[in-house]
């Protein structure tokens, strides 16, 4: 809704009419009423501020005095003065900001109210002056309340009867004030008296204003202080969350207005809403900034933040109720929330409000369309959120809230980097294994926006794949390798464009490789010691290849029957006289080969067995392209001989260990190579 609408335009026209009327009727003697006009101006210049944010100026009393003593036209002058002063004040006395339309429509509103009050008081003429003043004040205030509510309804969509009870209570203040002050003035209506009275009231007002300003300043300071701490905390948590607390506070303030929440407790609740996440500062940074899903223990830790927050609040305020509001701000309406799993009305009303404001802020931050925000908020109704609360929020509300939101506050942002830096140092090791991730958009026009640091071949491949994703409208991922870098690209097609998430996984792969080498070295040392240098774990497959002597024979291994064939192959190259003389030795060679090839069949399915000779030493070289063997099993198989070691690898390896004179082993995710050596077998041969 616009500010200028069918309702406010007639009001402003009425305002113009009222000004014209004042001009035509003539000012009479303005001198008489000058002290009163001055009083009105002062009252409007320094209204009494209340903590709820409402401001009371006693100018209504001035209007009624003018009306009763001098008639409608001077009263209209009083209204004009009051209007101009209060509008100037709300425009911070900057002429550019002065809204003449609002002034006119306010003048219109006041004129209607004044006319009605005038009518009522004329009817009551002859009765007590107190009754007249009271009735006039009541009429004026009630009518004004009604007119203002209609304006709010047409401009911001706030329901007509919103806050009715509270507003009626508030009307009591001006009515009582006028009933006392107005007759008092009218009795002593002389110029001297008015000057004296004006100064007297002024002094009184100054005293009240002095204290109220001091008090309000302290309260503001406290709230701003808390908000600033939260903001620093949010900076530390994540740049994306900056201003979240502040925004939730603002949303809460407006939501409470819609709900008609008692004004007395509003400020407390707004403050709590602003600092609801303060407990997150107690959590380790890596949990808060983790990109993927949190592990179970991390999730538990994360879910402890309301408990931390509530403890902090309890320490600061000593108020158990307020700390409970915070404690339960992640409870869900359906009972699936935390920390206590409360449901529906078990959850404190205030916690439900904070939860909704929290979610609303999050949605408004992520979705620019107000309709989308409302759609998602309504989806949460009954599940996360109290449906009654959600029913108060509409697209108009969201649109209204947007103008108060703070998303980026540039001043101070750079200074705060020092808060984040020390933590970044600690996490450097972690971040060094994750490469850059970026989001690219493929708009379906055949070319992706260029990125200077990406190899052109990768961009070319991405374009082809993105075009395919668009045609198939299916998401998939692909690994691309170029210039020593490895990228993982995920394609998410929308209706007419494709989101491409490109991960540089080079550092992660390098990290894995480093870790693997590190582990291999550790195992090599352990196993070399345990096996008295009989087993050698090789870090690179080339180390084994370098040990190989002269090639004799080889065969492919594909099926279980090849286990027997490989034994035959190995035995047939052993000289016949050795076979007859050392049948036990031959048996142990057969056994070792049988075990090694059985492992190959079981774990890799296919591979190769080759035999070599190197100065009398018989070498059996078994390779496969399986996914490698678990090295952590090896020390166990050496220490525990016999069948008692349960693992299938164990038995086999223990037998190889017992049979062979030396074993070299290389294993990696790309495959395994084993070299079995048997000394002094082929000496007589060749």
């Amino acid at each position, binding site marked *: 809704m616009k500010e200028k609408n069918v309702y406010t335009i007639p009001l402003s026209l009425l305002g113009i009419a009222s000004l014209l009327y004042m001009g035509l009727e003539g000012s009479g003697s303005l001198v008489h009423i000058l002290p009163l006009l001055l009083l009105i101006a002062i009252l409007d210049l320094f209204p009494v501020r209340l903590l709820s944010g409402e401001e009371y100026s006693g100018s209504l009393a001035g209007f009624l005095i003018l009306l009763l003593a001098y008639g409608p036209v001077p009263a209209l002058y009083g209204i004009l003065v009051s209007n101009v002063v209060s509008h100037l004040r709300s425009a911070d006395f900057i002429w550019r900001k002065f809204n003449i339309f609002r002034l006119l429509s306010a003048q219109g509103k006041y004129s209607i109210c004044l006319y009605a009050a005038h009518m009522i008081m004329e009817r009551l003429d002859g009765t007590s002056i107190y009754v007249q003043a009271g009735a006039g004040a009541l009429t004026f205030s009630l009518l004004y309340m009604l007119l203002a509510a209609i304006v709010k309804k047409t401009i911001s969509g706030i329901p007509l009867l919103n806050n009715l009870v509270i507003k009626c209570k508030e009307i009591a203040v001006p009515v009582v004030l006028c009933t006392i002050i107005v007759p008092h003035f009218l009795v002593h209506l002389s110029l001297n008296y008015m000057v004296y009275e004006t100064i007297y009231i002024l002094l009184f007002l100054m005293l009240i204003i002095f204290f109220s300003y001091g008090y309000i300043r302290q309260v503001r300071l406290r709230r701003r202080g808390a908000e600033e701490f939260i903001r620093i905390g949010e900076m530390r948590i994540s740049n994306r969350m900056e201003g979240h607390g502040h925004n939730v506070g603002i949303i809460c303030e407006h939501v409470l207005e819609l709900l008609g929440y008692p004004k007395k407790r509003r400020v407390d609740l707004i403050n709590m809403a602003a600092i609801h996440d303060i407990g997150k500062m107690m959590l380790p940074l890596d949990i808060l900034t983790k990109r993927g899903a949190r592990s179970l223990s991390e999730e538990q830790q994360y879910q402890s933040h309301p408990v931390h927050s509530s403890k902090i609040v309890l320490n600061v305020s000593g108020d158990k109720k307020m700390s409970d509001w915070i404690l339960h701000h992640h409870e869900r309406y359906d009972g699936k929330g935390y920390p206590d799993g409360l449901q529906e009305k078990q959850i404190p009303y205030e916690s439900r409000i904070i939860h909704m404001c929290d979610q609303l802020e999050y949605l408004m931050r992520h979705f620019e369309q107000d309709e989308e925000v409302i759609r998602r908020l309504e989806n949460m109704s009954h599940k996360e959120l109290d449906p009654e609360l959600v029913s108060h929020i509409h697209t108009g509300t969201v649109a209204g809230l947007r103008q108060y939101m703070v998303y980026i506050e540039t001043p101070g942002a750079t200074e705060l980097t020092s808060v984040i830096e020390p933590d970044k140092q600690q996490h450097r090791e972690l971040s060094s294994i994750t490469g850059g991730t970026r989001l690219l958009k493929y708009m379906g026009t055949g070319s992706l926006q260029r990125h200077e640091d990406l190899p052109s071949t990768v961009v070319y491949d991405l374009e082809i794949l993105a075009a395919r994703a668009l045609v198939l409208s299916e998401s998939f991922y692909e690994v691309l390798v170029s210039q020593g870098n490895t990228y993982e690209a995920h394609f998410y097609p929308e209706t007419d464009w494709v989101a491409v998430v490109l991960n540089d996984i080079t550092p992660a792969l390098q990290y894995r490789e480093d870790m693997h080498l590190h582990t291999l070295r550790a195992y090599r040392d352990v196993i070399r010691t345990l096996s008295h240098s009989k087993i050698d774990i090789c870090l690179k497959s080339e180390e084994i290849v370098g040990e190989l002597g002269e090639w004799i024979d080889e065969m492919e291994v594909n099926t279980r029957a090849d286990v027997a064939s490989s034994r035959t192959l190995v035995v047939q190259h052993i000289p016949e006289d050795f076979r007859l003389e050392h049948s036990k030795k031959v*048996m142990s060679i*057969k056994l070792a080969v049988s075990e090694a090839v059985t492992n190959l069949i079981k774990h890799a399915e296919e591979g190769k067995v080759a035999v070599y000779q190197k100065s009398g030493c018989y070498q059996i070289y078994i390779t496969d392209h399986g996914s490698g063997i678990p090295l952590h099993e090896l020390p166990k198989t050496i220490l525990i001989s016999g*069948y008692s070691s349960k693992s299938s690898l164990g*038995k086999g390896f223990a037998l190889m260990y017992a049979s062979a004179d030396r074993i070299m082993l290389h294993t990696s995710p790309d495959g395994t190579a084993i070299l079995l050596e048997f000394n002094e077998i082929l000496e007589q041969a060749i």
Partner: protein
Amino acid sequence: MFTYRLELTGQQITVYCEGDIDIDAGDTFEEQLEPELAEASSVILNLGAVQFVDSSGIGLLIKLVQDLQEQERQVWIEQTQPEVMEVFQLLQLDEILGKDTFR
């Protein structure tokens, strides 16, 4: 290649094994031999013609013998070749199945 021949004497079955017992013998053991022994109250495994057994083969033997023993049936292993016996000892098969299983 593993093969076997059965000889029935009353309630006693003698299994004459021949060839190598390795991973390749698994199917023959589990799908053919085991069901055929279901009726016998005592079983004799004759390994006289078995020249080679590896750890997979020993695994098959252990499973077969222990299954039969659990059903309270008597099992013996006899005429094991010395080279094969050496592998049995290497893997402490006599301790696992009980020394009186061998004869």
